[in-house]
C-alpha cells in the first residue's frame, strides 16, 4: 500500500518537473555565455571537415565555423565543446539542445529546413555526389555503373540522390548501407561493393584513408547539388543571426583581403568596408548582442574563409580540393556574403 502511495507521489512530482521543461524556451546566447563554451555538433571523423588531429584537437572547415562562433560570442575561438555525431543522430541532437550549432557537412534540403524545426544558416561548401571506384574495374564514367553494388553511409541525402540517379538513367544497383563512414570504407576495401559514393569532398577525404589510395579513383561525374552548411534550431533568431554572420564575416574577410596575419594592420585601414567589419566604424555586433570586435576576433583567431579552406581541404591540406565553385564571386566562384552595413 505504501509503495503505491509513493508511486502516486512520484508521478505527480514527475509531472511538475516536466512542466518546467515545457515552459523554458532557451536563449542560446545567454546559455552559451553562462556555460563559457559553444556546444558544437561535428562529424564522427571526416578529415578536412571535422576530425581530431594527432594531439586530439578538432580540426577542419566545419570545426572552424564553430570556432568562429565561439570567437564572436566569447572572444575565444577555443571555447568550444565538440560533440561527435553520426549522420542518424545529428538532427535529434540539435533539436533536443544537446548541441547549439550543427556544423557537420550537412546538406541543405527543403525537408530538413522546413519540417525538422531547424534552420540552415549558410553554405560553407558547395558539394555534389560523386563515385569512387577501384581502378581495376576500368570504368571511366558513372553511366557504366549498371548493376554495381554501392557502399553508402546511412541517413544521408546520398541514399536518395543515388537512387534517383540510377532510376533516371534506367540502371540497377545494390545499396549496401553502413552506419559510419569508417564502416563504409571497410566495406569498400573488403570488396563488398564496386563503388563508394558520397559527397566528392568526402570521397577525397575517405580516399586518403584507404590502405592504398592510389588503387582507387574518383569518377568525374557529379550527380547532385549538395550545399553543406551549419544548422541551428528554429525559434532563436538572435543565435541564428550570430551563426549566419560569423560565416559571412569569414567570407567578407577574404574578399577584403583581411587575414589572421594582417588583421591588426587592417585595423587602421581607410577602406570603410574593412573599418565596419572590424568594428572601427560603428558597432555592427550590437544587433546580435555582441561586442564591436566580434568579427575582429573571428579573423584574428580563426582566419578568413580562404585561409580556412586552404588549410583544411584546399591545396595546403592532404585533400587538395580545388576551390572551384567555392571560390569567391569575384574569382569566378559562387561564395558571396552580404555586406556589413
Amino acid at each position: 500500500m505504501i509503495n503505491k502511495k509513493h508511486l502516486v507521489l512520484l508521478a505527480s512530482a514527475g509531472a511538475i518537473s516536466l512542466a518546467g521543461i515545457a515552459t523554458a524556451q532557451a536563449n542560446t546566447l545567454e546559455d552559451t555565455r553562462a556555460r563559457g563554451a559553444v556546444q558544437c555538433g561535428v562529424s564522427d571523423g571526416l578529415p578536412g571537415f571535422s576530425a581530431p588531429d594527432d594531439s586530439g584537437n578538432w580540426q577542419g572547415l566545419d570545426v572552424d565555423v564553430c570556432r568562429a562562433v565561439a570567437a564572436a560570442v566569447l572572444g575565444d575561438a577555443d571555447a568550444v565543446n565538440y560533440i561527435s555525431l553520426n549522420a542518424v543522430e545529428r538532427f535529434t541532437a540539435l533539436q533536443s539542445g544537446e548541441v547549439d550549432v550543427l556544423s557537420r557537412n550537412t546538406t541543405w534540403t527543403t525537408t530538413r529546413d522546413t519540417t525538422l524545426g531547424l534552420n540552415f544558416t549558410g553554405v560553407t561548401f558547395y558539394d555534389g555526389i560523386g563515385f569512387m571506384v577501384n581502378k581495376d574495374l576500368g570504368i571511366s564514367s558513372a553511366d557504366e555503373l549498371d548493376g554495381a553494388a554501392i557502399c553508402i553511409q546511412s541517413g544521408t541525402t546520398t541514399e536518395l540522390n543515388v537512387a534517383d540517379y540510377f532510376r533516371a538513367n534506367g540502371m540497377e544497383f545494390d545499396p549496401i548501407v553502413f552506419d559510419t563512414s569508417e564502416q563504409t570504407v571497410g566495406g569498400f576495401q573488403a570488396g563488398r561493393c564496386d563503388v563508394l559514393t558520397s559527397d566528392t569532398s568526402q570521397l577525397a577525404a575517405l580516399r586518403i584513408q584507404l590502405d592504398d589510395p592510389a588503387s582507387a579513383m574518383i569518377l568525374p561525374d557529379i550527380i547532385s547539388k549538395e550545399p553543406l552548411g551549419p544548422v541551428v534550431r528554429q525559434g532563436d533568431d538572435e543565435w541564428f543571426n550570430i551563426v549566419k554572420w560569423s560565416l559571412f564575416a569569414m567570407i567578407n574577410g577574404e574578399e577584403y583581403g583581411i587575414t589572421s596575419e594582417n588583421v591588426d594592420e587592417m585595423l587602421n585601414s581607410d577602406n570603410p568596408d574593412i573599418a565596419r567589419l572590424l568594428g572601427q566604424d560603428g558597432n555592427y555586433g550590437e544587433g546580435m548582442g555582441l561586442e564591436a570586435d566580434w568579427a575582429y576576433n573571428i579573423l584574428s583567431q580563426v582566419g578568413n574563409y580562404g585561409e580556412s579552406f586552404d588549410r583544411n581541404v584546399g591545396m595546403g591540406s592532404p585533400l587538395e580540393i580545388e576551390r572551384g565553385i567555392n571560390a569567391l564571386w569575384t574569382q569566378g566562384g559562387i561564395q558571396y556574403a552580404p555586406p556589413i552595413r
Partner: protein
Amino acid sequence: MSVRPNARPAGHKPPFWRDRAKRALIFQCLLIAAVIVFLFYIVGNVQDNLSSRGITTGFGFLNNTAGFGIVQSLIDYSSQSTYGRTFFVGLLNTLLVGGLGVIAATIIGFIVGIARLSPNWLIAKLAAAYIETFRNIPLLLQIFFWYFAVLRTLPSARDSLAFGEAFFLNVRGLYLPEPLFESGFGLIPVTFVIAIVASIALVIWAKRRQEATGKRIPAYWISFALIFGLPLLVMLVTGVPITWEMPELRGFNFRGGITVIPEFLALWFALSIYTASFIAEIVRSGIQAISHGQTEAAQALSLPRNLVLRLVVIPQALRVIIPPLTSQYLNLIKNSSLATAIGYPDLVSVFAGTTLNQTGQAIEVIAMTMAVYLTISLLVSMFMNWFNARVALVER
C-alpha cells in the same frame, strides 16, 4: 477461510476506509488514474514542444515516397515505394534472420550441449572449448569477424568459386538457382499438405497401437518417407513443372537466381553460433538436473542409450530447459538489431536508421520500432509458455 475473530455483528458495517479490500481498490484506482493523467500529460507536452519548435509530427509520412534503395527485400520494393513499405521490408528482414537464427541456434545448441556430456573425451572437450570461446566474446566483434574476415577471403565476382554451373560463391554473396514454377505445380503443395496430415494420423495411430498391443512400427521413418516421397512422386508424374533460373555473370555481377547477401550470412552465423553456446549450457544443465537414478532405472529396463535419452531424460529435462531457452530466443531476436553495424537491412537499419533520418520523425519511428520488438518478444514468450505448459510434468 476462517471466520475473523473480531467479526462485527451484522448491520454495523465498518466505514470503507477501514475495509482492507475497498481501501486497496481505491488506491489502485487512484494509481491507474494518476498513470493515465501522467501519460496524457507526457504526450501533450511532447506535442506542444514539437509544434512550438516547428517540428512536423504525425504518421502521415508513412504514405510519402521513400526514394532510397534497399538491398534485400522479401516483398516488392523499389525506391518509389512508401516509407510505410520500408517498415515492412525491415520487419520481414528482421523476422527472417531472427527466425532462421532461432532454428539454427537450437539445433547447434542441442547437439553441442549433448556432446558436452558425451563419455568420449575428445567430443566433450571440443564442445566445452566451443562453448567457452563463443560465449565469452562480445557478439558485435563476432559479427564483424564473420563479416570482414570472411569477406576478405572470398574471391571477387569475376573469379567466383563455382559449384557446378549453378552455385556461385563470391564476395557479393552466395548465388543459387531460383525455381520458377510452371502451371500444374499447384498439385505439389497440395500433396505435401496431404502427406503431413497423413503422417500425423499415422503417428497417433501407431502410438495407440503400441499402447494397446505393445507392437511398434517405425512410424517416424514412414512419415518422413511420406512427406518427402509423395510430393516427389507427384512431381515426377506431372513431368517436373519447375524450371530453374541460373545465376549468370553479367557486367559487374551475377544476375538472376537467388542471391544470399553476405551481410545476412554473417549476421545469421554470428547470432546462431553465439546463442547456441548459451543454449548448449542450458541443455547440459537441464540434462544434469535429472537425477542419475532415472537413467539407471531406464538402463535397468535395458533400454539402449538413445532411447534412454529420448524417452526418459529429455522429456524431463525439457521442463528445466524451456524457461531459460525462451530468454535466449528473445535475446537472439533483439540482438539481430546489431545488423546495422554491417549493413544488413533489418528494421533498425532501414526504418529506425534511414527512414528516421530522411523524415526526421524520430519519436514516431522509434515508438513504432520499439512496439515491434515488444510485440515479437511477447509473442515468442507466449508461445514458449504454452509449450512449457505442454511439456510440464503431469503429476498423477
